[in-house]
């Protein structure tokens, strides 16, 4: 093979190297802001688009392989670009393009690190994620994986003067590293032996036994779950995302979490030569718990970025539900259904990439305009920053899973997959399904609640602080970035069929079936997963009808009556003064959820008594798992190290006794 062919894989490699080069270029003039924001970042965005294009091209071709003369001597870097990688690469490219452009408008001088350093870390982050998607051996995968963790860690802690940020970064990297070791051990089980860690070999190797296969799967679930924020390994997520600069949180939440999904899919459906139905059930259950947990905690947050972080946990849970269904279906050889569930999961991945990036970027703009992250001090921004507000509305509706936007498509597909489970030959599963479906439906409804809270409190109503009136709208670059993602949300929502067709190649690769043909059965306008009479949904018609009606009604009203408007004071219900502080707050929105789902939360309230000199109300809502799992573990470690410390009491006699005893024991043992 000639050194360079013009095939997608080579282009992808080129982009990876190019991103690294951009990062290094940032170090040439580390403190020159314009150089970074007006030259490097936009170019990086273009590279992202190219990457996406190459990936789309690759989805239809069959897998390409390439070996680089790097890595371990017996294990040079193997790269492979197949449909699955291509799909995730496309997601990365498209999302990162928007984020990069936004970042070039967002980056300020004097904040955090020097622009050049940030540029380096940012592009390393992008490159490592791309590398993960094309890695075809355990070593390269792990290298890229940890590089991603490391670069994102540096981005998270870019404001390291703040102690909270530091501890967040620490927690993040710690959990990431432990998870990585889990993945590494998983590869240890899957390997071909004799230092052969190529995925090609892993595909061929039969697991030693059912037990070993299960070990491998559980290790993978643990390792990738730690990165994805799967319960109970989610604690780093709501800490790290708010700490990071918004574009970084956007990428971490929108794309980085998906690398974990990618890895799980890769191991489960591609590398691991075993299928056990209860793996799927386990994943499904974990996914459900995660989703519900995430959305409930999102509902009670008072910090907008934390809220979005928890909502990310929820969405990851939803994706895992899809994967769990797929695994179960495949274990029962129901490939078409597995394909459907998988499509739902993948579609939700890319949806989440778009609307979560969009919303995190929005929080970035709001943050820059107001220096406020706390929902309790925002409000009424739709007046001062209309562009951001309207683009945010799209993201909000999308993430709330409302038709005709993209969030709804994946939810719809997932519910369809659920409604088809009665086909399963296992009656217990059939019993579980309604409950699972119910929980899922509840999650969707709650996410609507959360998003109304988010948007309403941030953008609507009256400004809760005086300074908010002075908030400026986003700048040019930022607008472009937001617009790019918003358009993505709309297109994904309105024209899902082409993408689902594309996904066909992925599902064929993973579960040997695709719903492509049945989808196109009744034209590109309708999604019909199985058959038109079973279920069909056409977002485009949906949108058109509503639009037409709205237009018609508008014209009729204007025509027959009039469009006269007078402005007046709001109806005060007889209360003489109504201040902005009297609006319903984020706290207030959370309160009913707290009341109803009390057992999920660990709530510390201080309610003033009538006799308080200085009465105040305070309510802290915390994660029970932190107290049930993490603190005990860390305490146990401390206690253990305390005991071990006794070994070293500084007395040389004792030390001599150690050596002596060791010698005697070994001698006795060796005879």
């Amino acid at each position, binding site marked *: 093979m000639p050194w360079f062919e013009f095939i997608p894989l080579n282009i992808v490699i080129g982009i990876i190297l190019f991103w690294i080069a951009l990062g290094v270029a940032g170090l040439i003039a580390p403190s020159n802001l314009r150089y970074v924001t007006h030259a490097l970042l936009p170019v990086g965005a273009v590279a992202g688009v190219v990457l996406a294009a190459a990936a789309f091209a690759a989805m239809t071709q069959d897998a390409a392989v390439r070996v680089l003369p790097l890595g371990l001597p017996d294990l040079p870097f193997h790269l492979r670009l197949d449909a699955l990688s291509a799909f995730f690469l496309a997601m990365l490219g498209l999302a990162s393009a928007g984020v990069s452009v936004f970042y070039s408008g967002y980056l300020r001088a004097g904040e955090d690190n020097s622009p050049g350093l940030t540029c380096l870390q940012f592009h390393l982050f992008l490159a490592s994620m791309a590398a993960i998607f094309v890695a075809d051996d355990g070593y390269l995968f792990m290298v890229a994986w940890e590089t991603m963790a490391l670069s994102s860690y540096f981005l998270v802690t870019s404001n390291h003067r703040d102690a909270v940020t530091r501890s967040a970064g620490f927690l993040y990297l710690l959990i990431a590293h432990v998870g990585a070791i889990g993945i590494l051990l998983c590869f240890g089980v899957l390997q071909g032996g004799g230092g052969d860690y190529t995925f090609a070999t892993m595909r061929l190797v039969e697991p030693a036994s059912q037990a070993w296969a299960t070990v491998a799967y559980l290790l993978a679930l643990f390792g990738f779950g730690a990165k994805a924020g799967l319960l109970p390994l989610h604690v780093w997520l709501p800490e790290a995302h708010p700490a990071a600069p918004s574009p970084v949180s956007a990428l971490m939440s929108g794309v980085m979490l998906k690398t974990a999904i990618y890895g799980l899919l890769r191991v489960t459906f591609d590398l691991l030569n075993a299928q056990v139905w209860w793996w799927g059930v386990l994943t499904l259950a974990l996914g459900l718990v995660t989703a519900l947990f995430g959305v409930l905690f999102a509902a009670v947050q008072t910090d907008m970025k934390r809220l979005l972080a928890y909502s990310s946990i929820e969405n990851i849970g939803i994706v895992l539900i899809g994967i769990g269904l797929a695994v179960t279906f495949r274990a029962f050889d129901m490939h078409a259904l597995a394909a459907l569930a998988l499509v739902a999961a993948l579609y939700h991945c890319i949806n989440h990439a778009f609307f979560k990036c969009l919303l995190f970027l929005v929080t970035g703009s709001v943050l820059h305009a107001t220096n406020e992250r706390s929902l309790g001090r925002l409000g009424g921004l739709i007046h001062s920053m209309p562009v951001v507000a309207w683009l945010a*509305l799209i993201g909000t509706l999308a993430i709330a899973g409302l038709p005709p936007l993209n969030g709804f498509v994946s939810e719809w597909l997932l519910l369809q997959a659920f409604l088809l489970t009665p086909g399963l030959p296992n009656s217990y599963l059939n019993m579980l399904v309604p409950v699972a479906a119910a929980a899922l*439906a509840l999650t969707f409804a709650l996410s609507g609640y959360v998003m109304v809270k988010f948007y309403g409190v941030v953008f609507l109503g009256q400004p809760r602080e005086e300074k908010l009136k002075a908030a400026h709208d986003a700048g040019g670059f930022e607008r472009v970035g937001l617009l790019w993602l918003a358009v993505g949300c709309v297109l994904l929502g309105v024209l899902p069929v082409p993408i689902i067709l594309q996904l066909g190649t992925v599902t064929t690769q993973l579960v040997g079936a695709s719903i492509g043909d049945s989808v196109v059965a009744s034209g590109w306008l309708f999604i019909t997963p199985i058959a038109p009479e079973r279920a069909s949904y056409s977002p485009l018609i949906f949108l058109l009808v509503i639009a037409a009606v709205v237009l018609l009604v508008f014209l009729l009203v204007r025509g027959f009556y009039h469009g006269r408007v007078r402005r007046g004071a709001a109806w005060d219900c007889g209360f003489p003064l109504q201040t902005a502080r009297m609006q319903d707050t984020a706290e207030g929105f959370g309160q009913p959820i707290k009341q109803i789902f009390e057992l999920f939360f660990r709530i510390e309230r201080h309610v003033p008594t009538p006799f308080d000199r200085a009465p105040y109300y305070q309510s802290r809502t915390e994660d029970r798992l932190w107290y049930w799992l993490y603190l005990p573990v860390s305490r146990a470690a401390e206690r253990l190290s305390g005991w071990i410390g006794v070994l070293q009491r500084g007395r040389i006699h004792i030390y001599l006794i150690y050596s002596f005893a060791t010698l005697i024991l070994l001698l006795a043992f060796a005879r």
Partner: protein
Amino acid sequence: MIEAILSQLFQTLLAVLLAPLMLGWINNCRAWLQNKSAPGLLQPYRTLRKLFHKDAVLAHNASSLFRMAPYIIFGCMVLAASIVPVVETNLPFAYAADAIALVGVFALARVFMALAAMDIGTAFGSLGARREMLVAFLAEPALLMVLFTPALISQSTSLNTMVATLGQREFALFPSLAYAAVAFVMVLLAENARIPIDNPATHLELTMIHEAMILEYSARHLALMEWAAAIKLMIYCAIGIALFMPWGIVAAGSWPLLPVATLVLAAKLLVAGGGLAVLETVSAKMRIFRAPEFLGMAFLLGVLGMLTHFLLER
């Protein structure tokens, strides 16, 4: 093709135009039951007309979202009206959205209403919005569960197929459907701001939900809101009818049968309206935090319906 479009238009317009009448009928029934003098069947129409003529008064703080919301909500309801097989199945639009999408439409409308309510930034608007969402996040999954039971029976989520299978089948008892029906009624009451969840006739802000949200609306905006609400109620009744007493719904384009179908529908609606009025008369409004329990019950019944389906009917 033309026929299909025509029949679609016919049903949609029927639903949209008859909705206020249905409201009027319910109000009348309730008035009679409560020994009040009835306002007359056409009162809702008069109200709408009056409202359309007035000048709109907007709060100083109202954004364009506030002004758009009524149109969008109305649009959603019209779409819903054209999806649900009120008198006819196999309507062209019906393929654009199935049962799940229908729930989606209602959710869309609700979210916009809540957002609009929060837009002004008065205490009561946002309070109403919160309560509405509180009711919603329980009612919505409950409705989904209700719809899933027939969906599982008919192996399909498209309303057409559901109604068709349920309608054409020889008379058989579906215990699961019974659960679903009860749950559905509860959801209907909650979603349409009826007693015991909300009181459409109240004028005490603190107890309002729906009224609190549209407190700031006036004139044509208010009219559209009210009308949309009426359509929603109508559609809900229609869904209930279509699912639980689906006899007499005809396939699209069969014009000769259409009048019959319409009459049947009218009869059913009368019954349903009466029933609603009775329910609202005999029961009292609950405290807001009893609502979750009420809807949780509905949710539970929905799930039970599905379970019983798996247990007994397969």
